[in-house]
Structure formats: structure tokens, C-alpha cells
């Protein structure tokens, strides 16, 4: 710190430590909040990424969807729906996605495997216990593609699927709900009007498919379609890729196959939607960014309030040091020397607030990550470097912006008037 401006400014900052602390409190809170929000956001992102990885990152999902051209019409009918154009949550079912589409998709280069699925909600009963839950009908390939691990028993085979076998694999939670301490494998549960043999139970949280929270039951898709739902169409198909880097090209191939099979020439009339995991992630990213932006905007109010606090105190400090300013001018300090000294002091004040805020915010984000990990979530503790750089720059800029007026006041003081006030 050989720079005299720094030396003088630091002397000022050190002269009244409790006031320095209180002055910088607003900046600390503001910067701390920004860092906390960024850290928590990054942690949440790491959690979502882990989810996606568990589900399989080399995955494309094609699902039935109302054509965009009819979206406006349908959304007025079901304005409360969160997915206005998803047939799964819409009163108008799309019936065009069939098992032969899945077979054709399997022939696309870079497609390793695929399964079709339908979903229904049914009451499931074992002895006197009943639960209403989602029934996932899937082809057997699900057990190869999905990362879910069957802890107890087995999945079903192609023959069982095609043969309309009444077999079921239970999520861990529904298994516990229905069977308590009994071993479910080999027992029968009643789904609708049929008895299904439980052949397997998923490991706890084995599949992190957002639709798989442990309460689901997986049965052969053909059985669900023919015996329970009385339909022959699918709601979605999950496609596994050889090479995820070609996901965009492959998803276009999937679109081509589906358009050809569904006799669609106008993209506006697509009755399906193909989404790569990358796209899902970017959708999620957009939402997260919006939330982060909002929270940072709120934290910025604290920064501005903090800046005004710094300005206020700088005015007090200038008044307090009028005699000193006069002396320095008498000893040859130019106006700009005085200006720089006060400006640097203001910047140091805000930087102290910034650094303490960064440490505090990072500690907060660390605590959140520890709590999340305590709940068993894959939550990393990340404070982005750009966030730190941004915070330091923002606090320095606040110092300049809110310090310049008091500093100019100090610089413009007449030396003799300043000396006389001593």
C-alpha cells in the first residue's frame, strides 16, 4: 500500500471501525444476497443436472401434443391446464402415436433403443389397502433405458408385454404403502378389474424420472392399453441415443419419421413434440435465470440503499475532516488529490461490504447445500466466479457513484476556510 491515496483512505477507514461496519452493512446485505441467490441457483442447477443424468442424458422424448395451429382454440377450453397443448393433460386425446412409430424410430441411425408408454390413473388394491396411483404402461425396453434399478425381483420381458401378461413392477413407496413389511414379489395386486402379479420392486429413489416418485406402478404397455384403457395409442416414447452429441440431428429424424407416419406436411399441424434433454435443460435454465434475475433485482434495492448509506456517511466524514482537508491543501494537495482520497475511501468502504457480503453469501449457500445434502439431494456447493467478480465490481462502482459527490465537496473546499474551521 505504498500509494499515498490508499494510505490516507485506509487511515480514514480505520479511524472509526464501528462506523465503518455500520456503513458497509447495507452493501454487505445486498452483495450477500446476490451471492446467496447465485450460489443457491447453481446448487439447484447441479441438482437438476443430477436428476437428468440419472434419468439418462442421452435421451430424446417424443410426446403427443396438440398441433400449434389448434393451440389457441384449445387453450380457451382448458385455460387452467399447465400444459395447454399436451394431450396428456388435455380433454382432447391425440390418438396418432402408435407402437409402430416406436419401431420405426428404432431404425433411425444413432437410435440405440426406444420404448413407448401410456399413463393411466387407477385404484390399486392389496388386501384391504387401496391407493389411487399412476399406472405407467411401457414396453420392456424401459428396463434397459431407464436408469431405475429393480432392487427386488425383475422387470417384465417382451413376451410378457406382447402376451398381455398381468405383471407389475412397483415403486418403492407404493410397495411399502400396500405391503408394509411383507415382501410384495409373488403377491397379487388388483388394478381395475384385473389381478397383477408383482414381479419386481424399484430401489428407493432409483429412478429420478420426474414422473417417478416411488408411487408409480409399471406394467406392460399392451396390457394397459388393451385390458384397462381400451386404446391403442401411446402418450409418449422415450428414445435412447448412441451418441448424445448428435441429439439435435436425431431429434429431427424422429420428427421426420413421425410426420411421415402421421401424414403431416405442415409443421403447424404436428401432433407431437420432440424434446431432447438439452432442450428440457435449457427450458429449466431459462426459468431459473428469470427467478435469479428477479431475486438479484430485489437484492439490488439493498445495494442502492447501502450506497446511499455510504454517501451519507461520506458527507459526515468530509465535514469531520474539514480541518484535515485544509491542512492537506496548505501542504500542497491539489483538488484532485483530495477527490481521489475520498473516492478511494468510499470505494474501500463498499469493497469491505462487498467482500464480507461475498463471504457471508457463500457461507449461506454452503449451508443450503449442506441442508439439501442432508435431505439426500445431489446438491453441489458452487459460487460462480463471475458472480464474485460481478459483486466486487458492483460494490466498487457503488463506491464511485455514491462517493463522488461527497468527495467533490471535499475537493472544492477553500483551504483557508477549511483550516479556520479546525
Amino acid at each position, binding site marked *: 500500500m505504498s500509494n*499515498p491515496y490508499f*494510505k*490516507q483512505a485506509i*487511515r480514514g477507514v*480505520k*479511524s472509526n471501525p464501528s462506523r465503518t461496519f455500520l456503513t458497509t452493512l447495507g452493501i454487505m446485505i445486498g452483495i450477500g444476497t446476490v451471492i446467496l441467490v447465485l450460489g443457491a441457483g447453481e446448487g439447484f442447477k447441479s441438482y437438476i443436472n443430477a436428476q437428468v443424468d440419472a434419468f439418462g442424458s442421452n435421451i430424446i422424448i417424443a410426446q403427443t401434443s396438440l398441433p400449434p395451429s389448434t393451440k389457441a382454440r384449445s387453450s380457451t377450453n382448458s385455460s387452467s391446464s399447465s400444459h395447454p397443448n399436451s394431450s396428456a393433460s388435455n380433454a382432447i386425446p391425440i390418438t396418432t402415436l402408435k407402437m409402430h412409430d416406436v419401431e420405426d424410430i428404432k431404425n433411425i441411425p444413432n437410435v440405440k433403443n426406444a420404448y413407448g408408454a401410456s399413463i393411466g390413473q387407477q385404484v390399486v388394491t392389496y388386501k384391504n389397502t387401496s391407493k389411487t396411483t399412476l399406472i405407467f404402461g411401457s414396453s420392456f425396453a424401459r428396463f434397459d433405458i431407464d436408469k431405475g434399478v429393480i432392487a427386488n425381483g425383475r422387470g417384465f420381458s417382451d413376451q410378457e408385454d406382447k402376451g398381455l401378461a398381468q405383471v407389475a413392477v412397483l415403486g418403492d413407496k407404493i410397495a411399502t404403502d400396500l405391503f408394509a413389511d411383507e415382501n410384495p414379489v409373488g403377491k397379487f395386486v388388483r388394478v381395475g378389474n384385473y389381478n397383477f402379479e408383482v414381479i419386481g420392486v424399484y430401489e428407493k429413489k432409483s429412478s429420478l424420472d420426474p414422473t417417478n416418485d416411488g408411487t408409480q406402478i409399471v406394467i406392460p404397455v399392451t396390457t394397459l392399453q388393451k385390458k384397462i384403457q381400451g386404446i391403442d395409442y401411446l402418450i409418449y416414447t422415450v428414445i435412447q441415443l448412441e451418441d448424445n452429441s448428435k441429439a439435435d440431428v436425431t431429434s429431427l429424424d424422429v420428427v421426420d419419421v413421425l410426420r411421415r407416419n402421421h401424414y403431416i406436411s405442415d409443421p403447424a399441424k404436428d401432433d407431437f413434440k420432440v424434446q431432447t434433454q438439452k432442450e428440457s435443460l435449457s427450458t429449466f435454465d431459462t426459468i431459473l435465470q428469470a427467478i435469479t434475475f428477479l431475486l438479484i433485482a430485489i437484492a439490488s434495492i439493498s445495494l442502492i440503499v447501502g450506497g446511499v448509506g455510504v454517501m451519507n456517511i461520506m458527507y459526515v466524514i468530509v465535514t469531520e475532516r474539514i*480541518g*484535515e482537508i485544509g*491542512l*492537506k*491543501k*496548505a*501542504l*500542497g*494537495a*491539489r*483538488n*484532485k*488529490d483530495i477527490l481521489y482520497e475520498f473516492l478511494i475511501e468510499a470505494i474501500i468502504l463498499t469493497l469491505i461490504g462487498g467482500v464480507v457480503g461475498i463471504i457471508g453469501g457463500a457461507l449461506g449457500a454452503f449451508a443450503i447445500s449442506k441442508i439439501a445434502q442432508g435431505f439426500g439431494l445431489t446438491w453441489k456447493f458452487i459460487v460462480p466466479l463471475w458472480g464474485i467478480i460481478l459483486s466486487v465490481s458492483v460494490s466498487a462502482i457503488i463506491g464511485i457513484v455514491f462517493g463522488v459527490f461527497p468527495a467533490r465537496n471535499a475537493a472544492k473546499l*477553500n*483551504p*483557508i476556510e477549511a*483550516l479556520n474551521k*479546525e
Partner: protein
Amino acid sequence: MLIELKNIVKNYDNGGIITRVLHGVNLGVEDGEFIAIIGPSGSGKSTLMHTIGFLDRPTEGDYLFNGENTKDFTDDELARIRNERIGFVFQSFNLLPRTTVLDNVMLPLFYSTNKKGHEHKAKVALEAVGLGDRLQFMSNQISGGQKQRVAIARALVCDPKVIFADEPTGNLDSKSGSTVMHILEKLNKEGRTIILVTHDMNVALHAKRIVTIRDGEIVKDQPIPESERVHSKAVSD
């Protein structure tokens, strides 16, 4: 002529009421002189010193410093003159609090264009006032007399031509005051111009010439014969 004041007028504007403090002062100071400006309080002697010391600009009149008219000098140019050519010693010492003796003396060097050898120059200046052993003392840990000697060292550190001393003994006991005056005399003997402002005739009699000011005008300007001068000795404290 080092300092030449021609018809210097200084008005203070106090919310529309204009007070004339200096009424056309003419004064010349040669290089190496030791002059005392005396007068009662309110006579304008401080204003005169501030004007000569470039702390304030005259309302009217010309001020030639080293033969140059300073009328059109910018604030920065005046700051540079104060830094390089003038050293100030004030009645209340005006040391920076919570700062070492050495750093206090180095302060004018911070604002100088010469960026080298600051610490050495400050040490030399402190040796000259007999405080070479107090470098790391805080400014509030030393006696009043020592404070004023630090202030003199600070005035000396940029090697100025003129030293302005405004009631330098006003806040000191007689022993400390004596030491301070002894140092000023020594500096004058070494060739520096000393301009002393005081209301105390005993202090003024250290000078070689006394200028008396009353109601903003110089009423008397007389040399002091060597036989009438007072000489102080350094007294250890």
C-alpha cells in the same frame, strides 16, 4: 525580491455584506529575510499571511512571487507552489491524528511531483528539529513542543524557500516555545526566509524586521537592530 505585494485588497463577502480586511497592502520581502508581522486580533495579519502563503487569493492587487505575477495561476499551480516553495507552521500544530511522526512529516511529499526518497527526506527533516529518535511515535504520544517541531520538520521536508509560522508558540509553554524559536532562527541562518505572524512582541523580536498591521493597513515597517533582537536557546524537554 522573493515576495512583492502591490496594492493587495481582500474583501470577504458574508452573505451580501462585504467586509474589507486588507486595504491596499504593499510589502516586499527579500530572499533570506526574517520578518514578523504583528498586530492585534482582527487587524488582518492572518488574512495577510494566508494571502502571501497562497492559501487565499487577493480580491485586487498583484502578487509577484519570485518575480512572477501569480494572478492567473490555476488552483493546481498554487497548490504546487504551496507544496514546493512554502512551508507552513500553525499555532495548533495540525498534525494528522493516529499517524506516526514519520508519516506526518512525509505527508507533503505525497503531494509532490518528486516520488523518490520520501522516507529519507523526512528523517533528515526530523533530525534537523532534533526528533530523529521519535520517528515511529504516534502524533498524540508526544508533547506539544515536540508536535510543533514535527510540524516544522513537515514544513521543511520539501525544502521550501519560505516558512510561514502563524503564532508558532501560541499553544506552547515558554521552554518549548523557546526551542521552536531557536529552530526558526537556525533555519533563517541557513538561508531560509521566515515570515512569522504573532501578536507577542517578545516573539516578534526574534525577527530582523517587524511589520505592524492595523485595520488592514501596514502602519509601521521597521528593521530591528541586532542589539534589540531576542535570541532563544534550545531547551531540552
